[in-house]
């Protein structure tokens, strides 16, 4: 790699109508729309499309089909708004819940092997937080394909994309966004992993679908690939990140490994115990006990550990006991759980409890967009001015339908609804007839400088050490329970880690599949995501949804019913109002969130 800085002319350029970065559920739903409309579409992905993290989703896709009993999209809308602790934008939530049945039927039509009822209709399972008649009673709303919903969805979308002639660039990593002097987005600078070549992929519309950044925490259910690349690239290009303080914890990740133990275990009768063998959830949630919502259970576990009732030599986890269910139930109704416990906790759960901790699972915040997937940022008086040529969908985006806390099964529906609507919006621009805007001369400077630094540094910090320091800091200072002291110190430490990120060096300078180089480049993105998270959390002096502050235990709608916007430049925060006005129905005014 010997490209000089300042001369974009030396880099190879490939041009497309539309470029999608990310081949998970959201990216492939969008690209399908584009390719079927006859646009030239390139989809870039770090890994083979069907190995995107969407493959890990088991629970299902939420849509008010009403196949099991009466259901209505308004009830789904209410559940989502309440789940979001009123931070979700009601126009976007309305759009998502209304459109959900349509995108599920569309997916069925594409060949998705949904579980079925005897009458052939799609079977729907129960899921936490799904209710009929505005919280009155539970309703079965989750559409699934056994415990492999994400897998089935990715395979279905991939096949359709191949048929529609979407061009996949597999094992390519986007490194930076290109914007011109007007701020219009023109494409990305990308690395072909096989050859180490750097190229410019130029497009009339660029869409990020890069997924979440769960790997910035030490305890995470996310695969290694989730390093927040889209967030890092957007932040470096001057685009703000919205509501990054809100991260969902899953109560039962295997201690030390992160691997998720499904809620189904507690559904079947598994219970959580502290070091005294006490079933502590009886104290925190006398009615629902171990089946209370994710945030309630996570906070209770954290409290037990903080108060010295954790288990193990370091008293840093609690136990999930299920041996009383008997081997039959465990083996038949909870497939994989025994294998997970054996492999990652070294215990046989038929005889012994599994050590678990609240574990980072999902990022509610992201790149701010409207319901068309267009990226928006404040400009002049407009809090949501469109950034030309730029779209974001899926977990890397914030539209915002999840607000301060995501309802289970609402991510997969978010991918489908907004993947499609963003695709449709791009199609509506009639791009094939239009010319590409000229690339600025310095389009690749920043990227080439980053690469040149890595190539020339002969000594420095190890990428693995710095990444580990970042994860430990985030876990300790921005975990389940937060307070001013922890967060202020967290901000200080993350800024220190940032200095170290700039001093990393890699021993391996080879060009072919240089994983060390890729990991160094991913760290550049993780640090931006971490800064956005801890700085936004420190400033928000209230508890709402997934942000639980022991020093500000209540929600404060007077001061804090607003979205956070973090800017990399100056590590600065701004805020914008929450949209409380749906387009076609009455608003759901904020009230206390109790289950």
């Amino acid at each position, binding site marked *: 790699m010997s490209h000089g800085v300042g001369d974009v002319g030396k880099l190879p350029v490939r041009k497309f109508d539309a470029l999608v970065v990310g081949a998970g559920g959201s990216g492939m739903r969008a690209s399908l729309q584009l390719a079927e409309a006859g646009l030239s579409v390139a989809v870039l992905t770090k890994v083979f499309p069907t190995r995107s993290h969407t493959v890990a989703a088991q629970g299902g896709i939420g849509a008010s089909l009403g196949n099991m009993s009466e259901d209505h999209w308004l009830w789904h809308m209410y559940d989502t708004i309440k789940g979001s602790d009123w931070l979700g934008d009601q126009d976007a939530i309305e759009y998502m819940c209304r459109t959900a049945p349509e995108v599920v039927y569309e997916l069925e039509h594409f060949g998705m092997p949904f579980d079925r009822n005897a009458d052939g209709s799609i079977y729907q399972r129960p899921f936490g937080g799904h209710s009929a008649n505005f919280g009155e009673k539970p309703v079965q709303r989750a559409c699934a394909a056994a415990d492999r919903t994400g897998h089935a969805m990715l395979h279905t979308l991939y096949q359709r994309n191949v048929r529609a002639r979407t061009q996949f660039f597999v094992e390519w990593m986007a490194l930076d966004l290109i914007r011109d002097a007007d701020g219009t987005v023109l494409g990305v600078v990308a690395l072909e992993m096989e050859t180490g070549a750097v190229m410019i992929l130029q497009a009339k519309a660029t869409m990020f679908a890069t997924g979440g950044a769960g790997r910035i925490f030490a305890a995470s259910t996310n695969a290694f*690939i989730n390093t927040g690349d889209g967030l890092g690239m957007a932040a470096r290009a001057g685009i703000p990140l919205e509501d990054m303080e809100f991260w969902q914890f899953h109560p039962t990740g295997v201690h030390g490994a992160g691997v998720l133990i499904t809620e189904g275990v507690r559904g079947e009768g598994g219970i959580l115990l502290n070091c005294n063998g006490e079933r502590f959830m009886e104290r925190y949630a006398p009615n629902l006990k171990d089946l209370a919502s994710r945030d309630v259970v996570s906070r209770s576990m954290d409290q037990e550990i903080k108060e010295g009732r954790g288990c193990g030599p370091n008293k840093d986890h609690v136990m999930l006991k299920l041996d009383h269910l008997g081997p039959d139930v465990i083996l038949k109704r909870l497939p*994989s759980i025994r*294998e997970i416990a054996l492999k*990652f906790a070294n215990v046989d759960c038929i005889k012994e409890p599994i050590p678990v901790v609240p574990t980072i699972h999902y990022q509610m915040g992201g790149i701010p967009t409207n319901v068309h997937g267009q990226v928006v940022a404040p400009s002049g008086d407009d809090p949501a001015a469109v950034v030309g040529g730029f779209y974001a969908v899926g977990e890397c985006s914030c539209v915002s339908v999840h607000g301060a806390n995501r309802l289970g099964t609402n991510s997969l529906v978010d991918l489908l609804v907004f993947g499609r609507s963003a695709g449709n919006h791009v199609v509506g621009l009639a791009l094939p007839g239009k010319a590409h805007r000229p690339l600025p001369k310095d389009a690749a400077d920043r990227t080439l400088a980053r690469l040149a630094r890595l190539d020339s540094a002969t000594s420095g910090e190890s990428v693995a050490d710095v990444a580990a320091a970042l994860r430990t800091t985030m876990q300790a200072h921005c975990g389940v329970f937060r307070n001013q002291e922890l967060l202020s110190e967290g901000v200080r430490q993350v800024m220190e880690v940032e200095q170290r990120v700039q001093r990393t060096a890699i021993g391996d300078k*080879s060009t072919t599949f240089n994983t060390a180089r890729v990991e160094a480049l991913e760290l550049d993105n993780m640090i931006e995501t971490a800064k956005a998270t801890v700085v936004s959390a420190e400033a928000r002096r209230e508890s709402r949804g997934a942000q639980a502050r022991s020093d500000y235990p209540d929600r404060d709608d007077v001061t804090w019913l607003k979205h956070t916007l973090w800017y990399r430049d100056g590590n600065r925060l701004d805020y914008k109002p929450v949209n409380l006005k749906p387009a076609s129905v009455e608003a759901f005014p904020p009230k206390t969130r109790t289950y």
Partner: protein
Amino acid sequence: MPTDDSTASAPHDDRRFARLRWRCRRGMLENDLILTRFLDARGEAMTEDEVAALDRLLDLSDNELWDLLSGRADPADASVRPLVASLRAA
């Protein structure tokens, strides 16, 4: 695939191994963890044959791979059985 002993024990080609290492990045954390453990312990010493076998395993979808690694299913392809056994022990 080579079968005589001299190639079976041949040290791996660095470029192929580099590609393999990246392809061990998966969509499921379960697989990431097992593959990383294995590569950290055995990676540098892997023979060309083992690299080829792992390459074939990595073509599987994440769920199929996890079924093999967790012991819920056995490989149909006999040539990958020794490798699957080592991965299960990792």
